[in-house]
C-alpha cells in the first residue's frame, strides 16, 4: 500500500486504532481487486490497434459501391450535359417563336377536320 493510502487510512479513522485497521483492510481488499482480469490488457490493446487502422478493409467495398452510385447519379442525372441553345433540328419552331404558328402547321399539319370553328383554328377558306 502506498504512503498516500496509509495516510488516508489513518486520517479517515478519526484517531481510532480499530477504525484505522478496518480502513487498512478495506484498502487492502480494494488493492487486491484492482488487478485487471487476465487478457483484458491484450484485448484493449487489440481494440486500440483496430482503431488505429485508417480504413477497415471490410468497409472498402461499401465505399466503392457508394462512390460508383454517386458518380453514376452525377453523370446521368437530367441536365448533367448542357443542352445546345439551338436544336440540331433547325427547323424546329421552338427556335423561331416569331414563325412558330406557321412552322407548327408546316411541321405538324393539322387535320382538315380540326380547321373548324370548334377547333379554334382559322379556316383556310374564310379566315374564321
Amino acid at each position: 500500500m502506498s504512503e498516500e493510502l496509509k495516510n488516508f487510512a489513518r486520517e479517515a479513522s478519526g484517531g481510532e486504532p480499530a477504525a484505522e485497521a478496518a480502513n487498512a483492510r478495506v484498502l487492502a481488499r480494494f488493492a487486491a481487486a484492482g488487478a485487471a482480469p487476465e487478457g483484458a490488457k491484450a484485448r484493449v490493446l487489440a481494440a486500440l490497434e483496430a482503431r488505429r487502422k485508417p480504413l477497415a478493409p471490410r468497409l472498402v467495398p461499401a465505399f466503392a459501391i457508394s462512390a460508383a452510385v454517386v458518380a453514376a447519379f452525377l453523370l446521368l442525372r437530367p441536365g448533367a450535359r448542357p443542352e445546345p441553345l439551338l436544336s440540331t433540328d433547325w427547323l424546329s419552331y421552338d427556335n423561331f417563336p416569331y414563325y412558330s404558328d406557321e412552322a407548327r402547321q408546316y411541321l405538324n399539319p393539322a387535320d382538315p377536320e380540326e380547321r373548324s370553328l370548334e377547333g379554334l383554328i382559322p379556316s383556310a377558306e374564310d379566315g374564321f
Partner: protein
Amino acid sequence: MEFAEIYDKHFDRIYAYVRCRVASGAVAEDICSAAFGKAFENFSQYDPARGEPVQWLFGIARNEVNRHLRRSAIVSFIPLDLFGDIFGDRAAAGPDAGETGELYAALEELEPKERDLISLKFYSGLNNREIAGLTGLSESNVGTILYRCMAKLRKKLAAEGL
C-alpha cells in the same frame, strides 16, 4: 516517454478505476479502449509540465466514464432492478462473485460522486489536491467526501464480516 510505456505502467490502475464505476467488466474494457485511444491520438498535446501522465490519463478516463454513464442514463428506459428476481443479484453473479462482488456491491451503495472520488483515491495514487484539480471540487470538500465514503464502506464491509 513512449506511449506504450505509459500504457503498460498505468493500464491496471485505469482499468480498476473504470471497473469500480461501471456495471460490467466488458463495459470497462470498452471504456478503457476509448480512453487510451483518445490518449494516444492526443499524446502529442500532453505537456509534462502540467502534470504527471497518470493525472492526464485519469482525466481522460474519467471523462469517458462520465460520457458512458450519461449515455446509459438516456438509453436505459427500464431499470433492470425491476427484474432482480429473474436475473438474480448482480453483485453475486458472474465473474465478480465473492469478495470482488461484495466490494462492487458496497460501491453501488455510494452516490455517483462519492464513487468517483473513492475510486480515484484507491487507484490513481493522486493526493486530495490533485483529485480536487481533476474533479473541480475544493480540496477540503474532497477530503470530507472521502472521509464519509470510507466510513460507509467500513460499515458496509464490516457488516459482511470483513
